[in-house]
């Protein structure tokens, strides 16, 4: 390509050509594949830069605002609260903690909350009643409303007893509800299968034993997780905690 070729591309994009030259340019585009490809890249770069410079001031301003918000919402103890709100929070948290302490034996929940945060995925296709129910189940599960999600998962397991996904999430739900024995039955069944939830199930079994301070059993289950499993990093972190 010559300098004139590039200059012509620029003039074409700027609509800065007399009709005859424009026709000649378009004819060359049709006949010369290399020229056409060069023009494609030129035009693409041109438009990307043009959009970029056109919005750059606004974008910078927005970035500035987002950066400020990030400092507030994404620090280790975020979000920061005003002293008044903080005081109310302290009282609320203390009250909640006492209630939880009396009802739930919270020491058994800590590890689960700390190391066992997962989300339940929705079914991909809407259209039948069961899928609608599973969408609702995923919403409840992700909101941490385990009491309400349990009957939905019970029903899903009744309909499809071998579905590993339903068993896995029911197992995790039962753990959150402190029903460890039933939880372990579900999770072991998942682990004995071949689904993608297999090693996640082993991880949660490990977590259950971690909660009940059964270190050897916890270690045994976490060690079943191979290095290339997606959950391996989490398992290693928990193993280190045991040391």
């Amino acid at each position, binding site marked *: *390509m010559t*300098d004139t070729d*590039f*200059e012509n*591309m*620029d*003039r074409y994009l*700027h609509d800065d050509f007399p009709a005859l030259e424009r026709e000649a340019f378009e004819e060359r585009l049709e006949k010369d594949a290399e020229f056409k490809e*060069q023009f*494609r*890249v*030129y035009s*693409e*770069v*041109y438009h*990307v*830069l*043009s*959009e*970029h*410079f*056109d*919005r750059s001031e*606004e*974008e910078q*301003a*927005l*970035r500035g*605002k*987002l*950066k400020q*918000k*990030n400092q*507030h*919402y*994404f*620090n*280790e103890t*975020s*979000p920061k609260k005003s002293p008044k709100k903080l005081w109310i929070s302290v009282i609320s948290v203390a009250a909640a903690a006492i209630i939880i302490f009396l009802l739930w034996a919270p020491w058994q929940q800590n590890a689960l909350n700390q190391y066992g*945060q*997962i*989300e339940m*995925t*929705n*079914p*991909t*296709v*809407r259209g039948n009643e069961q899928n609608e129910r599973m*969408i609702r189940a995923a919403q409840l599960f992700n909101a941490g409303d385990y009491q309400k999600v349990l009957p939905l998962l019970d029903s899903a397991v009744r309909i499809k007893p071998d579905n590993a996904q339903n068993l896995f999430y029911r197992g995790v739900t039962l753990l959150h509800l402190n029903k460890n024995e039933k939880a372990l039955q579900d999770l072991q069944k998942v682990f004995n299968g071949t689904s*993608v939830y297999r090693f*996640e199930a082993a991880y949660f079994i490990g977590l259950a034993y971690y909660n009940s301070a059964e270190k050897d059993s916890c270690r045994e289950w976490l060690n079943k997780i191979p290095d*290339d499993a*997606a*959950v*391996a*990093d989490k398992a290693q972190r928990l193993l280190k905690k045991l040391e």
Partner: protein
Amino acid sequence: MAEDKKIHQDQRYIEGLLHDDERVIDEIYKRFSQKIKRWIMNNSGSVAEAGDVFQEAVIVVYKQSREKDLKLTCPFEAYLMAIVKRMWFKMLKTRGRRGVTIDLDDVYNVGTSNIEEMEEALAQEEKESKIMNYFETLGERCKEIIRLCLKKGAAQEEIAEQLGLSYGYLRKKKSKCMAALVQKVKSAGLKG
């Protein structure tokens, strides 16, 4: 918008971003940042990384609404989360870190139409980032000329005067600078 779907009420977040509405931006952070932070941290990320990804995801939405007139047909949270997941998966992959446990099937939450637009926006984002990196390797004069000339609605004659150049010389110089940039981009194999 390829599909004739009802616009979701969360479109107000899009409008708010587009019009730099401080209240809406604040609400976006209040309502969605902590869940996304938890998700990133549960998937091998740090708080700072979560903040960066959240910010960039909001910027992607802003650009889409500004340039492609994004119309949400799903909740804003689902859309933002799907962008965050894709960005984070990509970041993990680039860093050679192990993958995460949650699958990427957001098609139901977001809907086919919005998913396609989102994928396109993310591809465009990547392309822009590459082009801007090459742009930054040009000389200062070239960068100045391109920056001034390519801004929409810029009057080339006025720019020539501002830079103390003739219009003809400016045009030649600009296409030379662009040619240098295009060659760099082309040899890196930018896909169309």
